[in-house]
């Protein structure tokens, strides 16, 4: 592709630069950019790499805490967990590739985020997936769902990293635009922490891993698929094809390099969006150095590739190693051992310039700072008018629920609530032998840290219905729910990562959602003392002009000092006392009950109080630490009744409960999604200590009944056999995903 012969507007469209941005480039450069430079600017100034729209807003997040070793800005965030150990984590989206080619899109999503983790010097120990799809009533959505799950399974299993958790939900707004957000977590010793930086001129740049091909060109600037696929037969799909085997070799080789050859290298950088371009620019910009590379030295998968294509290829499973001068042969010998191809492609220089040559021809000569400093846009968001109308909806205007048992069964069979076993049985969640609480057993995955008594708890969450109705409260609740899941496992939440999925931010109503959600998240983070240590932004999630619900996915990390104090969600034994911790107004606004049974996403959300949330977490962690609880399950989708039923279903034992009947309707008491609550069970002897603890933490604590029997009973409202509830819950998702005949 000879870009330089094309007219500027066509090029700009292809690389997704606006005319104003192009003018800015010319002004800052003091000359017309070359074709290669335009392509590189387009990638580096894309929303994906340059955070043009989100950067000013992301500054609202609290990112500091004494235990944060590395905040946002590196490949992943890192926090101290004691004993000289640290956890690296990050979440990232692969939404559009997965919409085009679900299997490879999701697989390479796993590969990309895993590289971010071992690039920090950490061994990847867990993967979590937060997935959103359109309803399973369409063959297309079933295809996307199965393809994404299959892709995660194929890639994650092969690299030997357990997929231990995540969350899946289904809504109309994701019909054309599924969300595939992958969170990866790694374990490292403090001493092994390495960053993507160079020390100075003379450092050697080594490219290692897969050969570079024509896949994924313009993946970052995003418009490529349309422009590239229309007429040019030499062009390839923008979705990359992953090779998890090479990834596995890269993991082992890089970790061996850090273990045995640490003094030979100064930095590691993975190749993700915008390939070599962003890798070398980021290294140079962060280190305050320049780089000089020769694309002729980059091993190609196919002949005839231009400098432009090499610089923008997003071929997977590649790493950039910044080695000390003269040490490159030692470094390359380790890669040779792992049968990985490596090439010295350039040097670190002192002039601050990113210089790209193709043999003798200079293709790019631009200060790294210019690439790295994408112009940012701060807009004045406009509150969508529809929000007031949605908030004014009164759930009590609906007819009273005629059959509460049937309503509960409907919610248990809803794909958002139903067992995800048909998904996680396709994921290896036991490899590495650290999984103490596996998928389906608790609110968060719990992994032991070998050689210590500690464990970490991990969860992802976001209820986008709430964000659609009230982006600020919804953002806050996303943080609260993810952290509550972790606390319900007995872990103290210590950090979050996020993936902000929104529509087109150039629309002022979408910008409003983005700003409000981030503000709400930031407030909740402060109240809960959890810093945001890394994250990713995915904008332009729209189909035919219709945006997804705002979906700020949150991944939470919690720490358990003694792994034996971990909690699971299922009731354990006959006679244990059941209690609800926390209290909330009984309002159905924004609930799954309204969405699933009445087809309405509306109403005012029950009030969210971040301080009450923090108190609940502190209580749960303390109660778990003192071994007072036998089970704990937080209240979320479907409210109290669904949480209670799930504890019974998972434990395969009934419960007999009576709650205070207020002036609210029974369905509001049963299915309201008021926040900051959990259902717990415990031995009767623990009751005084728990009451005392609750008082000290200022947390409402209400005993409501006992574990036992074969039925789930609440007042005269609910009476349903555990076995039947189990069967409804256990197979609903599998059935819906397989249902090809009976639905259109």
């Amino acid at each position, binding site marked *: 592709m000879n870009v330089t012969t094309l007219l500027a507007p066509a090029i700009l469209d292809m690389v997704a630069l606006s005319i104003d941005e192009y003018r800015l480039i010319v002004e800052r450069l003091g000359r017309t950019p070359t074709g290669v430079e335009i392509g590189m600017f387009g990638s580096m100034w894309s929303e994906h790499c340059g955070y043009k729209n989100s950067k000013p807003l992301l500054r609202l997040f609290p990112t500091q805490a004494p235990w944060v070793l590395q905040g946002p800005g590196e490949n992943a965030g890192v926090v101290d967990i004691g004993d000289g150990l640290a956890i690296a984590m990050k979440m990232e989206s692969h939404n559009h590739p997965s919409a085009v080619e679900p299997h490879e899109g999701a697989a390479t999503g796993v590969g990309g985020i895993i590289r971010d983790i071992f690039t920090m010097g950490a061994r990847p120990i867990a993967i979590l997936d937060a997935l959103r799809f359109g309803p399973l009533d369409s063959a297309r959505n079933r295809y996307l769902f199965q393809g994404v799950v299959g892709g995660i399974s194929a890639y994650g*299993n092969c690299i030997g990293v357990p997929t231990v958790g995540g969350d899946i939900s289904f809504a109309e707004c994701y019909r054309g635009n599924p969300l595939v957000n992958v969170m990866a977590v790694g374990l490292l010793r403090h001493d092994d922490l390495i960053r993507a930086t160079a020390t100075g001129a003379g450092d050697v740049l080594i490219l290692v891993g897969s050969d570079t091909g024509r896949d994924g060109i313009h993946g970052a600037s995003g418009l490529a698929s349309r422009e590239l696929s229309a007429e040019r037969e030499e062009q390839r799909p923008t979705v990359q094809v992953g090779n998890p*085997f090479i990834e596995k070799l890269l993991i082992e080789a890089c970790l061996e390099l850090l273990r045995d050859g640490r003094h030979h290298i100064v930095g590691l950088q993975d190749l993700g969006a915008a390939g070599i371009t962003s890798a070398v620019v980021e290294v140079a910009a962060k280190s305050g150095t320049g780089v000089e590379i020769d694309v002729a030295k980059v091993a190609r998968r196919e002949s005839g590739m231009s400098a432009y294509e090499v610089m923008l290829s997003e071929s997977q499973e590649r790493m950039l190693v910044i080695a000390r001068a003269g040490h490159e042969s030692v470094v390359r010998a380790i890669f040779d051992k792992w049968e990985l191809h490596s090439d010295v492609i350039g040097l670190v220089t002192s002039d601050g310039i990113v210089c790209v040559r193709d043999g003798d021809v200079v293709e790019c000569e631009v200060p790294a700072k210019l690439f790295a400093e994408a112009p940012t846009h701060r807009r004045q968001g406009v509150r969508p008018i529809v929000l007031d109308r949605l908030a004014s909806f009164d759930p009590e205007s609906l007819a009273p629920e005629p059959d509460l048992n049937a309503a509960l069964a409907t919610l248990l069979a809803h794909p958002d609530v139903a067992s995800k076993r048909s998904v996680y049985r396709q994921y290896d969640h036991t*490899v590495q032998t650290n999984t*103490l609480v596996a998928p389906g057993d608790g609110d968060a995955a719990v992994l032991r840290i070998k050689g210590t008594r500690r464990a970490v708890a991990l969860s992802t969450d976001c209820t986008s219905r709430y964000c659609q109705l009230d982006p600020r409260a919804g953002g806050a609740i996303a943080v609260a729910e993810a952290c509550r899941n972790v606390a319900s496992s007995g872990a103290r939440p210590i950090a979050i990562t996020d993936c902000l999925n929104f529509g087109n931010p150039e629309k002022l109503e979408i910008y409003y959602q983005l700003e409000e959600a981030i503000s709400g998240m930031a407030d909740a983070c402060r109240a809960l003392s959890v810093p945001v240590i890394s994250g990713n932004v995915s904008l332009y999630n729209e189909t035919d002009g219709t945006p997804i619900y705002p979906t700020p996915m949150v991944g939470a990390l919690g720490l358990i000092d003694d792994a034996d104090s971990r909690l699971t969600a299922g009731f354990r034994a006959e006679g244990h006392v059941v209690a609800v911790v926390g209290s909330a107004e009984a309002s159905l606004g924004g609930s799954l009950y309204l969405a699933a049974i009445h087809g309405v996403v509306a109403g005012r959300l029950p009030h969210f109080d971040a301080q009450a949330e923090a108190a609940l977490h502190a209580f749960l962690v303390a109660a778990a630490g003192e071994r007072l609880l036998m089970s704990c399950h937080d209240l979320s989708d479907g409210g109290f009744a669904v949480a209670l039923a799930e504890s019974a279903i998972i434990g395969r034992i009934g419960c007999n409960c009576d709650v205070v009947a207020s002036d609210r309707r029974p369905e509001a008491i049963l299915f309201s999604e008021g926040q900051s609550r959990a259902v717990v069970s415990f031995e009767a002897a623990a009751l005084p200590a728990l009451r005392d603890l609750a008082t000290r933490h200022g947390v409402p604590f209400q005993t409501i009944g006992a574990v036992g029997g074969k039925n789930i009973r609440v007042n005269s409202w609910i009476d349903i056999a555990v076995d039947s509830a189990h069967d409804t819950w256990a197979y609903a998702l599998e059935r819906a995903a397989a249902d090809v005949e009976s639905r259109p």
Partner: protein
Amino acid sequence: MTFGIVVFPGSNCDADVAHVVGTVLGQPWRYVWHLETSLAGIDCVVLPGGFSYGDHLRPGAIARFSPIMESVARHAAAGGLTIGICNGFQVLVEAGLLPGALLRNEALEFRCGWVDMTVERADTPFTRMYRPGQVVRMPIAHGDGRYFVTDEPTDVVLRYVDNPNGSMGAVAGIANHRGNVFGLMPHPERCSELDLGGIDGLGIFRSIVRELAGAR
């Protein structure tokens, strides 16, 4: 008495086996890189689980040509204890050290979960710590675990209670006729500590340790 844990490119469970052998049981072990050609000093060879060579072509089909495999074959032929777990089992059948083949799961999907199995043979060096007919529970994690053999499966050591992958005769693990080579799809190294939900896998490692201790 030393365990040799063979590491192929793409092995995933090498460290998990080392953890059980070394940390849980306190036995000596070393990794054996697939390019090595000597098993000197190794008493029990473990081919661990994983995706050697990314399962390209067929699981185990490439690994069986690794240089170390000639030594493994000699070790087995000399009566040395050899155990293949999951992908290691696949390598053993590809190498012809055990009969049969491991095909794609009947459901055409990867399966991870716990399975119950009956111990059909408690007289092998790998299973003496179990009672004959004992039901044991271990995790599986594989996409290609459907055992197939042209004749009736013989020397079946472990049999699934609820067949998770369509294996012929519900075979979960088999030995060679002599009993010194053992392959199984479940992962005993993932259930050798109470924290992980069960210790039924420990019997296999303990059986090996006792066998080797007795042999000296």
